[in-house]
């Protein structure tokens, strides 16, 4: 289980996160929502270690992560699908997937079949350069790449952004399938409410760097979530 407690984060002097606390449990999808610029991405970057936090702590599987670098967090089972995908453009699709070998045991260094089952396009495109793929293809690659590290926490930042409906459905199915495996905590940032609603076990809503509402799907009616998202 991942637990962030009272996290503060600054860009220069501007505070992007103010005492944010959130939990993501294994086998569940935790969905973080909020309008543009409220700090969702910032929180995720704090969790994966791309941005140091100024206050609070982030605890993963009982141990505080402190200031450990991203690659150590990856080794401890945290995988990240960033906003904007961040595919390695000059690496082929296959090579992009293989970058996930770094934190895992030698015997696990193969691409699990379910990656191709979930995203069949990747199989056809193994030899093409990642940077040449279309946006939707890159998004699938980014998720696939994260899965190669066999994560126990999957952090996804707006995975539906710019993706065609059928693939959104595929991604939705993929996330569901991953949840059903029960081995993985999934932290999902999403703007697309219908999509989030279908997947989320628990919700958290952010505004201006703070969590303004949180609770399980049942506790938080969809209307109350929506209300927080209107301008």
């Amino acid at each position, binding site marked *: 289980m991942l637990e962030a407690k009272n996290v503060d984060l600054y860009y220069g002097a501007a505070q992007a996160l103010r005492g944010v606390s959130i939990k993501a449990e294994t086998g569940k999808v935790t969905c973080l929502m909020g309008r543009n610029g409220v700090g969702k991405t910032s929180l995720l970057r704090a969790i994966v270690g791309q941005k140091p936090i100024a206050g609070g702590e982030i605890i993963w599987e009982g141990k505080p992560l402190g200031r450990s670098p991203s690659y150590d967090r*990856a080794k401890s089972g945290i995988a990240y699908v960033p906003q904007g995908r961040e595919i390695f453009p000059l690496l082929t699709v296959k090579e992009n997937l293989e970058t996930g070998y770094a934190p895992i045991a030698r015997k696990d260094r193969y691409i699990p079949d379910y990656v191709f089952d979930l995203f069949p396009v990747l199989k056809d495109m193994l030899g093409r350069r990642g940077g040449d793929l279309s946006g939707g293809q890159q998004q699938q690659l980014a998720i696939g790449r994260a899965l190669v590290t066999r994560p126990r926490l999957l952090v996804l930042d707006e995975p539906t952004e710019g993706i065609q409906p059928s693939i959104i459905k595929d991604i939705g199915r993929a996330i569901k399938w991953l949840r059903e495996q029960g081995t993985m905590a999934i932290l999902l940032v999403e703007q697309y409410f219908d999509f989030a609603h279908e997947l989320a076990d628990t919700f958290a809503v952010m505004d201006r760097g703070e969590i303004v509402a949180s609770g399980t799907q049942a506790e938080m009616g969809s209307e109350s979530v929506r209300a927080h998202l209107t301008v």
Partner: protein
Amino acid sequence: MRPFPSRLAALAIIALTLFGVLRPAFGADLTAQVNALGQGDYAALEKAIGDLAATGDPQVAPVLDALSNGDLYVRKSDNAVVKATKSGSGFTLTDPVTGAALGEAGRSGVTKIKVNNKIRGLVRSATGSLTLMSADPAQRRSAAADVFRSGDPAQIPLLDQAIAKETDPGVKKIMTEARAAAVLKSDMGDADKIAAIAVLSTRADQDALAMLASTASGPDGAVKSAAADAVASIQGQLKLWEGVQNIWYGVSLGSVLLLAAIGLAITFGVMGIINMAHGEMVMLGAYTTFVVQEIIRNSYPELFDWSLAIALPLAFLVSGAVGVLIERSVIRFLYGRPLETLLATWGISLILQQAVRTYFGPNNREVGNPSWMSGAFDLGNIAITYNRMWIVVFALGVFAVLMLVLKRTPFGLQTRAVTANRPMASSMGIRTPLVDALTFGLGSGIAGIAGVALSQIDNVSPNLGQSYIIDSFMVVVFGGVGNLWGTLVGAFTLGIANKFLEPYAGAVLAKILVLVFIILFIQKRPRGLFALKGRSVEA
């Protein structure tokens, strides 16, 4: 030993010649003649050499060799000519003819017999005729070559004898050519000369051309026209060879450029660091070679031929370690600020240069060529020097290994991922600091081994790096940043272009033209020869 009066010596020579050339002379007679070498000025020396040669005694050859090598001295006490080798502060003396030990002498006890180029030339043609009959084919070969060069008609009878006895076809050919050369200079009949021209025209090289050309400018007649024809045909062939030669020189220059640039193709091409200290990494490799050779020279001289093999891994380690140090202490704070790497690495380059200057001194250090890196062999009509050839082979080898590392190993993959997007690579679990350090270390290490090779053809001085840095950047950029194949093709293209221009435009203009060519070429292909393509690059 009492010196013979020289008149007596002269008499002895005449007597000996009458007895027949191949009869061994008496040691005593020879000794007198040898002693004549130390009796006067250059003119006297020339005469003494001529006299010795005229004995036709094979024992004379080593004596003359020693003379030419500067090993003959005059012992002051008795004016005897001795062979001296340095031992400690003095010399160990031996008899030049018999090789018998003659004891020691202090530095002031002997004076060297000075030789100059003219003397050396004389000695060479003299030993040529003396060793034509030697038992060693290599010696006969070089003797024949010497006779060929001197083209002395007086040697024709000797050559005829030698050719008759010769069993080695290669040597026989040279002897035949030597004979032809001599015939052309002799006053033999037209038929003989035309036959000689035919022999020489099959040789078809610059030397043959020179001999035929002087015949062709002689008096009119059948000989002249035959020579003129031969000249024309040789000139045609040489033209062709000139093209081949330019290509080879270009390839060789290209391989030097490749070596100089290949480390930069990693630190700059792959990692995006404008690495102005690259040249200094090359320099460190060259100095490593110097240190290795210095130790070998002082302690294990028999290992000298292995010096480069020993220096290679060491240079890789030294430059690589310095690279890692630089990356960890400076460069790592500059990722994402590529332009500032220019400033910092410039500073590093100044420091490294001055450090080497302070430690090793500002002067050139001597790095020798092992025997297998010295000299040349002929391929058709071009002389291929061993050092250049091995450097071509070496450059291609380094390139291949590097290509394998980057394309076929997990480390290569991680390197490419890290340099493309450091935070994301880290999130994929790649230990970016380690990969960064190792990649920069690899680039620097490769530069170091390039330094080992370059020490074989260039100065080893604190300025070594500076002289390659601009060319290296040109090659990497011309080939297309980030593409190793580009660096390879770029290096050879620029090398060959340069060498084709040089004979016509001269070295300076050729270099200018190549630079202009690069500028124009980049207009056509703004991202180099092997531009990276795709939308990611264009954004």
